[in-house]
């Protein structure tokens, strides 16, 4: 009788501790990442990223002009983002009952914005001024039983156009 009681209390206690730690550290990490994302998005605002595969003629008012044969290069941004224990648990409950899984929205949003930032950074490193034909590829690192932590890999790739400034 007392063994069962102890085991029950221990299990619930460990669970509550994991939930609290996941919630606390998860929120702190997420807020820190978002602040970093917003700062870097301002830094790379000059690197235009579009999904169009066609490079349009650019107005000289942009400070850019298209040469007859612009240089292009494949650029990519890759990131793996993980969710904390709190969000994983809430998401699992939501998946039992149905409805929108709010707790994963910020995970995907952060992943994609971070991937685009790294794409822009790579383009900037090689002298690119714009990235065309940008596409996302999103995949789960941890699949299967659900007992593992959920991590999402986001890949953003596109064609950087290296246009000399004239």
């Amino acid at each position, binding site marked *: *009788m007392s063994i069962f009681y102890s085991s*029950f209390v221990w299990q619930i206690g460990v669970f509550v501790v*994991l939930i609290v730690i996941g919630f606390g550290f998860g929120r702190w990490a997420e807020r820190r990442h978002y602040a970093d994302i917003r700062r870097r*998005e301002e830094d790379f*605002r000059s690197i*235009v990223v579009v999904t169009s595969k066609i490079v349009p003629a650019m107005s000289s008012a942009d400070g850019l002009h298209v040469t007859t044969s612009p240089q292009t290069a494949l650029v990519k941004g890759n990131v793996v983002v993980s969710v904390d224990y709190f969000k994983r648990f809430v998401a699992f409950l939501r998946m039992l009952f149905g409805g929108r899984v709010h*707790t994963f929205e910020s995970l995907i*949003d952060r992943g994609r914005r971070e991937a685009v930032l790294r794409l822009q950074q790579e383009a900037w490193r090689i002298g690119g001024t714009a990235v065309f034909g940008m596409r996302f590829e999103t995949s789960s690192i941890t699949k299967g*039983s659900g007992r593992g932590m959920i991590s999402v890999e986001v890949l953003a790739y596109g064609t950087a156009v290296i246009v000399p400034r004239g």
Partner: protein
Amino acid sequence: MAVKLRNPRVPEGINVSRHSAVRDLFLLTGGLLAFVAILGIALFWFGGVIMRQLPVRWENALADAVVVRAVDAPETAEARTITAELQALADRLSPSMVADEETRIQVHYLDSDIINAFATLGGHVFIARGLIERMPNENALAMVMAHEIGHVVERHPASATGGGLLVTALWSLIFGGSPDGLSALVTGPDALLVTGFSRAAEREADLRALDALARTYGHVGGADHIFTVFRDELAAMPLPPQILSTHPLSADRIAAVAIGAAQAGWPTTGPITPLSPQLAAVAGR
């Protein structure tokens, strides 16, 4: 027309909706616990009903395949003698308790210090040396024996086994791939259900045992002795809340003996039968 390329600052909160994850946690957990409780009760009850409908001989066959193989035959002459004495006591109590021809009571002696006795599938009753040592007379020991026989007659072991198996099987199917913490939440309410059922079963067995004692000895004197032993043994230990206990409180059981006797008109005093010499030797008398 020249296309102007821009990289504007996009407003936040479009792809990430405003919501309270904590509110979700409490709402969904509450819903899950309610679902678990309702379904768990239904499954446990249904599993128990199914098992109780099975013929006793099927239960006996299952028990023989599992319980008997796990139990060692008495190794010493003393153990065999004690087992025979306990079996004889059970055989004296059984006629007033067992109505089904297929129900058999087979007693096993546990050479252990633990103060315990229990019944399992197939009418197997186990009584430990630690408990016998604390019995002052046959009446007190008979209460314990009759209590365990009462579990067998009411088919409590079968009911608990069936209900528990059904709940465990379905939970594994639904929550098998869940985060670890979920299993604690799910098994918690189920465990409360099981302990609640167990307490009700203990009260039922107590009443059966009192009836058997009254029929066999003409009174229920000495019936509450085992509960005073439990109460005294557990007095120094911090007890969990009653809701987490598989047995009613000892004080409640002592009171229930008096109440049951008064309601049924059983005398609470009368001639006390001493333990047989072989059992008295175990008790050190």
